[in-house]
């Protein structure tokens, strides 16, 4: 856990499908391989959507947390 260093935070609060996924893709594009993106969302569909997104893109979903009023994700760029 301690080796995870978030280099960028993307807050998608208030945005609904498909924007959290679209904005995550755009953010990841501008990062370096190995970088970790923290993404915050309030879209209740974002946990299954981010899991599917990670499987499809091959980027690594390190964490997906339901924090009650919001969801928090850590995504590592792999390629």
């Amino acid at each position: 856990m301690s080796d995870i260093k978030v280099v960028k935070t993307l807050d998608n609060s208030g945005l609904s499908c498909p924007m959290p996924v679209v904005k995550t893709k755009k953010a990841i594009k501008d990062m370096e391989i190995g970088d970790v993106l923290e993404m915050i969302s309030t879209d209740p569909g974002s946990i299954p959507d981010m899991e599917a997104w990670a499987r499809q893109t091959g980027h690594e979903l390190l964490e997906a947390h339901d924090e009650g009023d919001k969801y928090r994700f850590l995504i590592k760029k792999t390629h």
Partner: protein
Amino acid sequence: MDDKPKKLALIASQGTLDWAYPPFILATAAASMDWDVAIFFTFYGLPLLKKDLKAQVSPASNPAMPMKMPFGGESFRNINWPMPNILMSNMPGFEAMATSLMKKTFKDKGVASIEELREMAVELDVKMIGCQMTMDVFGFKKEEFIEEADIGGAATFLEFAADSNVSLFV
């Protein structure tokens, strides 16, 4: 991950505000997952390529459409107003009112506008093909469309769709 990206082939055949959403949502989501995406805009879907988007809600063609008021208290907002379509859709200005109510409700819920989704689609390299035959029939010119739009026919779409993983007609 496979070397070859997956492909999504969509046909957008409806031009109302509500029906404009599915193709643009699916296209941007798929492109965000590194898929290759093409949308073929045909018949009433073709005006979605116009620079000046004028998509409206058409209550008359959606008899089961719930209508929500985007103001007032929570319980008032949650009411599904029954819409007597036969009567209301003949009322001047009703489509404009239904359209502005839907736009407001969508905005309040954080749903992107069709304009925003189309901009995203352009940015994500979604291939957008306008149907040549529909242009001829309804009298559209290429200059009316966004410059990213390509023009083609059924064969153009089918060639892309031939080896697509997902093909949908909306």
